[in-house]
C-alpha cells in the first residue's frame, strides 16, 4: 500500500507533467484566470515571440481591479486613461487569443475570484492560477490555487504549466462550534493573529475541523482567501457534499455522465488517515470572537472587546513596527477598540463580496440608518451577486439605510480605481489588507466581517456585532 497522502499531496501528484532531478516540477494548470492589471505584458510577450495561448479554453479573463463601480461607468470618462488602456488591452487580448471573457458590460462580470467559482470554472481537485495573490480563494473547493507574477502569467499562457517546487504541508484545525456573531472572516483573521503573516511561509495550508465543515462554501472561500495573508502559498479545504451541491448546475461544471465521473473522483479528495503534516495549528471554535485589526498588518488583530495594544507589549522588530503602525493609524495604546470612530464603511471585495456576506450585513442593518455624516458603500462581488441581492430585497435594505449600492468590482479593496479613502479617513472594511495606503494615500483600514461593518455603519464606531443582534 502506498503511504498516506494529504489532500495537497494528492492534487500535486495528479498534476506533475515533468519532474527534473533537483525536484523542480512542471505543474499542469487546469484553470488560468486573468485580469487587466498583471496580464498586459504577458500577452505582449506572446506577441513578441510569436507564441500563442496553449489552452484558451482553460483561460478566463475579467476586468475588475481598475473598473469604476458607479452606475455611470458605461461612460468611459469615469475611468482614468491608464485604467482605460489596461481594460481595453484585456478586451483586445481576450478577443485576439480566443479566451473566455466577461466584459464590464456583462452581468456576469465581477471580481475574478468570485466569477470563477460562480461560473463553475473552479472545481475540486483542479490547479488554478491567476496573477493575483488572492487566488487562494479557490482552495475552498479543494483546488490547488496559486497567485503568480506577470512572467509566470506568460509562462502559463504559453505552456499551461508552472515551474514549481513542492511546498510543505500545514494543517489548521478549527475544532467545535463558532459562537453567535462569529464568522468565517473572524476565523481566518484569528488564525493569522495566531500564526503571524509569515507563519504559513513555505506551506500549503489545509483547513479542517468541525467549524470549517460547518461553514457554507461562501464562508470557506473567505477563509481560504486570506491564507495568503498568513504567508501560505495556498489554502485548501477538502470538498464535501456542500461543495458538490454548490458546483452542480453551474454553467461550466460537468453535466450528466461526466458529472457522475467527476463526483466519483472528487470523493477521493481528502487527507488520508495518518498522512504527515509538517506543522499543525489548532484553534477552538468557541474561543474565536468577532475580530478587528488595529494596525497595518493583517496579523494586528484582536477581539473587538480588546484595547489598542502598546509597542511595549511586543518584542523584537515588532516594537518599532507597532509604533509606526499606531502612528499611521492615529491610535493611542489602551483605547478600547469599540471606541474608535470611523468615517467610512466598505462592504465588498473577494473576501466578503458574496451573497452570504450581503445577507449578513443586511440582517444587521434592517430597520437602521447609517449614522449621519458617514460614507457607506456596498460593492457586490459580481453582477450576479448584485442581481440576486436585488431579488432578495437586500439592495433595498442597504439603500434605505443610506448605503450606496454599487456595481461589481474590486472597488475600495485597493486604491486603483476611483473608490479610495481620503488622507486620514478611517474605514471599517470587509476586505483583506490593511497595509499603509492600500485603500488610498494615508487612509486607515480596520478589517472586519460584514456584520461588524454594518454595525459600525449604524453606530459610527467599531462595534461588537453581538450587541446589535
Amino acid at each position, binding site marked *: 500500500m502506498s503511504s498516506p497522502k494529504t489532500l495537497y499531496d494528492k492534487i500535486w501528484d*495528479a498534476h506533475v507533467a515533468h519532474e527534473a532531478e533537483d525536484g523542480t516540477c512542471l505543474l499542469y494548470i487546469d484553470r488560468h484566470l486573468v485580469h487587466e492589471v498583471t496580464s498586459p505584458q504577458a500577452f505582449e510577450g506572446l506577441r513578441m515571440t510569436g507564441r500563442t495561448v496553449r489552452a484558451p479554453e482553460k483561460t478566463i479573463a475579467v476586468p475588475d481591479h481598475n473598473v469604476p463601480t458607479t452606475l455611470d461607468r458605461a461612460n468611459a470618462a469615469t475611468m482614468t486613461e491608464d485604467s482605460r488602456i489596461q481594460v481595453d488591452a484585456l478586451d483586445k487580448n481576450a478577443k485576439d487569443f480566443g479566451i473566455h471573457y466577461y466584459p464590464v458590460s456583462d452581468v456576469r462580470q465581477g471580481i475574478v475570484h468570485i466569477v470563477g467559482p460562480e461560473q463553475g470554472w473552479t472545481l475540486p481537485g483542479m490547479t488554478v492560477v491567476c496573477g493575483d495573490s488572492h487566488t487562494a480563494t479557490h482552495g475552498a473547493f479543494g483546488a490547488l490555487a496559486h497567485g503568480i507574477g506577470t512572467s509566470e502569467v506568460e509562462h502559463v499562457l504559453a505552456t499551461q504549466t508552472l*515551474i514549481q517546487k513542492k511546498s510543505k504541508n500545514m494543517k489548521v484545525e478549527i475544532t467545535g462550534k463558532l459562537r453567535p456573531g462569529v464568522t468565517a472572516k473572524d476565523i481566518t483573521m484569528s488564525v493569522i493573529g495566531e500564526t503571524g503573516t509569515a507563519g504559513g511561509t513555505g506551506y500549503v495550508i489545509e483547513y479542517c475541523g468541525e467549524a470549517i465543515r460547518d461553514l457554507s462554501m461562501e464562508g470557506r472561500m473567505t477563509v481560504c482567501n486570506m491564507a495568503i495573508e498568513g504567508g501560505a502559498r495556498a489554502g485548501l479545504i477538502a470538498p464535501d457534499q456542500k461543495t458538490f451541491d454548490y458546483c452542480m448546475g453551474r454553467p461550466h461544471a460537468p453535466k450528466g455522465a461526466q458529472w457522475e465521473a467527476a463526483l466519483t473522483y472528487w470523493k477521493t479528495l481528502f487527507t488520508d488517515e495518518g498522512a504527515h503534516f509538517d506543522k499543525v495549528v489548532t484553534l477552538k471554535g468557541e474561543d474565536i470572537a468577532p475580530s478587528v485589526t488595529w494596525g497595518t498588518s493583517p496579523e494586528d488583530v484582536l477581539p473587538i472587546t480588546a484595547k489598542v495594544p502598546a509597542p511595549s507589549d511586543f518584542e523584537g522588530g515588532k516594537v518599532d513596527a507597532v509604533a509606526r503602525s499606531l502612528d499611521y493609524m492615529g491610535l493611542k495604546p489602551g483605547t478600547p477598540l469599540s471606541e474608535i470612530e470611523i468615517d467610512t464603511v466598505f462592504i465588498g471585495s473577494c473576501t466578503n463580496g458574496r451573497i452570504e456576506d450581503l445577507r449578513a450585513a443586511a440582517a444587521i442593518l434592517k430597520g437602521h440608518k447609517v449614522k449621519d455624516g458617514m460614507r457607506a458603500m456596498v460593492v457586490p462581488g459580481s453582477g450576479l451577486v448584485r442581481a440576486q441581492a436585488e431579488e432578495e430585497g437586500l439592495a433595498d435594505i442597504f439603500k434605505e439605510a443610506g448605503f450606496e449600492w454599487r456595481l461589481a468590482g474590486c472597488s475600495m479593496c485597493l486604491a486603483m480605481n476611483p473608490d479610495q479613502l481620503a488622507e486620514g479617513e478611517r474605514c471599517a472594511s470587509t476586505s483583506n489588507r490593511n497595509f499603509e495606503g492600500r485603500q488610498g494615500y494615508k487612509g486607515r483600514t480596520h478589517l472586519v466581517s460584514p456584520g461588524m461593518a454594518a454595525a459600525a455603519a449604524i453606530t459610527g464606531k467599531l462595534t461588537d456585532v453581538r450587541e446589535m443582534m
Partner: protein
Amino acid sequence: MDKFDTLTGIAAPMPMVNIDTDMIIPKQFLKTIKRSGLGVNLFDEMRYDREGNEIADFVLNQPQYREAEILVAGDNFGCGSSREHAPWAIKDFGIRCVIAPSYADIFYNNCFKNGILPIVLPQEQVDLLMKDAEKGSNARMTIDLEAQTVTSSDGDVFSFEVDSFKKHCLMNGLDDIGLTMEKAASIDSFEKQAAEARPWV
C-alpha cells in the same frame, strides 16, 4: 526570446558609474501595458529636456550613436529597483549587449531573461573599449558569445566569463518558457492522460 550568438555593431560610450534603473527608465513610464515601446523613453531624463526636445550632447542623440547596439558603461550598471522595464527599454531601443566592470544583481539577471548579454570585464579593458567606442560609428566591435570574446575595432581581443547555463539559454534563445517548451512532449502526454482521467476539466 531572441537568440544571441555574434553581434557586430556600434558601441555607445557612457563613462558614468552607478547608472541606475531610474535613469534607464523613469517611473512615470511604468504604468504602461507593454514591454515594448519603452525605447523612446530609454534614459529619458538625460536624453530630453522638459519640453521633450532632444538634448544634443547626450550620447544616444548624437548621429553616430543612434544605431548603437552595444553600450560601454561604468561600474555598478543597473542599480536601483528591480523593474524589468529597464532591460525592456534597453532592448526596445536596439541595444543587445552592455559592457561594464560590474552590474547590480537583479538587473544582470533580468538582462538574460530579455535576450540582452551583459558582459563583465576588468576596469582597464573597459577603459580601452570605452576609448574605442568614442571613435564613433566607424569603430564596430564584435561580440562572440560562443567564443566568449569581445573584439575591438583595432582587432584587440578580450575574453569574458559567463555562466554556462545562461550562455546556453541565450545562444539558443531560451527563456523559462522556451525551456519549458523543450519539454512539450511531457506536457502533451500529460494532457492526453489527464483528459482521459478527468475529461470534465
